[in-house]
């Protein structure tokens, strides 16, 4: 086992500096978002009033129509930039934070993981050695015998390898989570890349694991993966993962909402399910369908889910930004489409289609 020779003092100072800058950035990000929202609200109200005034004074109908069309468009653009601004700033801070943490955890975990192999070898050697002793000296002195009983040597011999195995499983899992975090927050999101879509979905699911698990009030949510044979897809992986995250989080919300009205037993008989199906539509595009058997939504809600700030959730819980951003990511950034099918009280399906080459 070797370790890189980096001056820890310098590294710590560098980290502290980055930490300070990041913290300041996060602090500011919130204030900036609030200010921007207010600025945009004012503009919206201003444009509305101007549109209204144009309607009132009936000078030249055609001209007015044209002008108010332009203004309506300006208003729409404005709403969109606002969405982008607010989200871009929040996401980039969050992404940086997540990537930073993942990076920091990665080193110590790899250290433990790497050394576990050695520990396992050494332990095995020691155990073999003890066994060799035992076979050559079947009748040790009383002192050794007493000590062996006291420490329960037999148990140690069987348990030590098991403990080491489960430690290894533990570090494996941490490594996997770290990988998912890095995968998810992909700081290279500005880059267009060809990636395995399934990897992105799996990473996202792993991050949402804590919400899918068994709880005292409800059994775990079943995730059914019907993955087809997909080619690598050219995309902005970080952004696409964000869209998966938004859709999956909504599915979990919808399932939790139904479950508030059901007992543990009722849920077990009729389990909550999220089904993810992927397939190749034709050679040029792929389809990813994410469905849940949750609360569903009426037509009136379906019509508005892609509107920025539209939410049916309580203040503090819903932001109403998830679907509008996902829609933008899929249609504008990837030239794809996002459709929603839902039956109230039964199920909801989101269908993503994106071209393989962009």
């Amino acid at each position, binding site marked *: 086992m070797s370790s890189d020779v980096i001056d820890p003092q310098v590294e710590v100072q560098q980290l502290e500096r980055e930490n*300070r800058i990041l913290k300041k950035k996060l602090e500011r990000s919130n204030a900036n978002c609030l200010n921007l929202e207010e600025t945009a609200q004012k503009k919206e*109200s201003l444009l509305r009033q101007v549109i209204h005034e144009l309607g009132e004074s009936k000078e030249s109908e055609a001209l007015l129509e044209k002008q108010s069309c332009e203004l309506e468009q300006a208003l729409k653009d404005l709403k969109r930039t606002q969405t982008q601004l607010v989200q871009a700033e929040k996401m980039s801070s969050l992404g940086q934070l997540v990537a930073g943490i993942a990076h920091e955890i990665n080193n110590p975990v790899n250290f433990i993981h790497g050394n576990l192999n050695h520990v396992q070898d050494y332990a095995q050697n020691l155990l073999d050695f003890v066994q060799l002793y035992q076979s050559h000296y079947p009748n040790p002195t009383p002192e050794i015998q007493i000590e062996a009983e006291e420490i329960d040597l037999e148990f140690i011999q069987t348990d030590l390898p098991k403990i080491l195995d489960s430690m290894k499983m533990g570090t494996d899992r941490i490594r996997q989570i770290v990988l998912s975090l890095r995968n998810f927050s992909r700081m290279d999101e500005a880059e267009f890349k060809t990636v395995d879509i399934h990897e992105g979905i799996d990473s996202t699911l792993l991050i949402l694991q804590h919400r899918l698990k068994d709880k005292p009030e409800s059994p775990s949510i079943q995730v059914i993966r019907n993955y087809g044979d997909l080619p690598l897809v050219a995309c902005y992986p970080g952004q696409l993962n964000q869209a998966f995250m938004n859709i999956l989080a909504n599915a979990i919300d919808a399932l939790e909402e139904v479950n508030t009205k059901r007992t543990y037993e009722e849920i077990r008989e009729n389990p909550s399910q999220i089904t993810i199906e992927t397939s190749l539509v034709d050679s040029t595009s792929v389809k990813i369908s994410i469905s849940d058997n949750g609360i569903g939504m009426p037509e009136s809600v379906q019509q508005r889910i892609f509107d920025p700030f539209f939410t049916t959730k309580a203040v503090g819980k819903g932001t109403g930004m998830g679907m509008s951003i996902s829609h933008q990511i899929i249609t504008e950034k990837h030239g794809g489409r996002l459709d929603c099918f839902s039956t109230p009280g039964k199920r909801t399906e989101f269908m993503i289609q994106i071209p393989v080459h962009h």
Partner: protein
Amino acid sequence: MLFAVGHSNDPDSQTAISEVLAQIHTTLAGTSPKGGVLFAAIDFDHALILHRVIKAFPDINLIGGTTDGEMSSVLGFEQDSLTLMVFCSDEVTITAGMGRGLSKDVTAASHSAVQQAKANHKEDIQFCISLPESLTTSGALILDSLKQALGARVPIFGGLTADQWRSEQTYQFFQTEVCSDAVPILLFSGPILFSHGIASGWQPIGKPGRVTKAESNVVYEIDDQPALAFYQRYLGDLPPSSEYPLALFDADSNRYYMRAPIEIHDATIGSIIFFGDVPVQSMVQITETTHDNILAASRQSTQQALENYPGQAPAAALFFSCASRRQILGSRTGEEYEQAQHCLTQPLPSCGFYTNGEIAPLQQHGTTYFHNETFITLLLGAE
């Protein structure tokens, strides 16, 4: 003439100023600067920073102030950062002065700043850079008394100090001193060349109104209704703010200049305080802008300055941009600095900040005006 810039985005004051000084030392290679301007975000330990600068450069004439955002050729646009530009020359005379207590006596404060700074000049003053307080006294008033003290012939450039949109307290710097309610100035004489550009990007929209009651920078009534009602008609219940200034029209031309609201003066009668005076009987109209218009104006400002530059090529640039521009541009603010850079044929050492009001003449060597919502480029160089 030699210019050097340093810029750090480390929020820790000690580390930030160390980084800035190290960058400047590298450029200067031992030359001692005569003058400097320091732009610092509001949350720093300003006294500590100033002491470090004076210790590093004992001959410097330093002024500065707090900001709404900073920019430089080192880091581009930043917030919560610290940037310093220093000037070195054997022929150009640079001096600093500071006037205190603006809200008590604006004339006395401005005159004492000018007197202090003017003492050591043998030649005619070429131009003045000033970074006055924005929250205690009308910017237009400060500018008027500075003009009086300097003579109308001397152009003034600069911006009012800011505090990241909090409207609580801003600070001005002079050597190692940190003040509020003050006006620091730098005066330049000798063989220094300069030119400037100025552009905004806001457009009038909606119904015009006539100011029917106003007193210096407080507007009480428009069209015989409370001034606040004029704003509320368009902004709803949200308070007037400087990204939505009024356009004030000339009596009989179509030209306009802008006055941005600071805050509500008296909510019960609906009066509003502005960054600058609004004459009674002015025709006014609310204005708005878009990202693209703002960015086009930044470019235009630098272009204008370049076209007017009297020498071969400028050696440095200073930028003063309105905090409202940053407010509207949001995450695109960095592009403003980039736009300004676009017109330059070679990268210049440059430095600037987001202000609560900008100061510059409308035309080269013309009389100086107080502006809102504007991007000002000041190019500097030697003969």
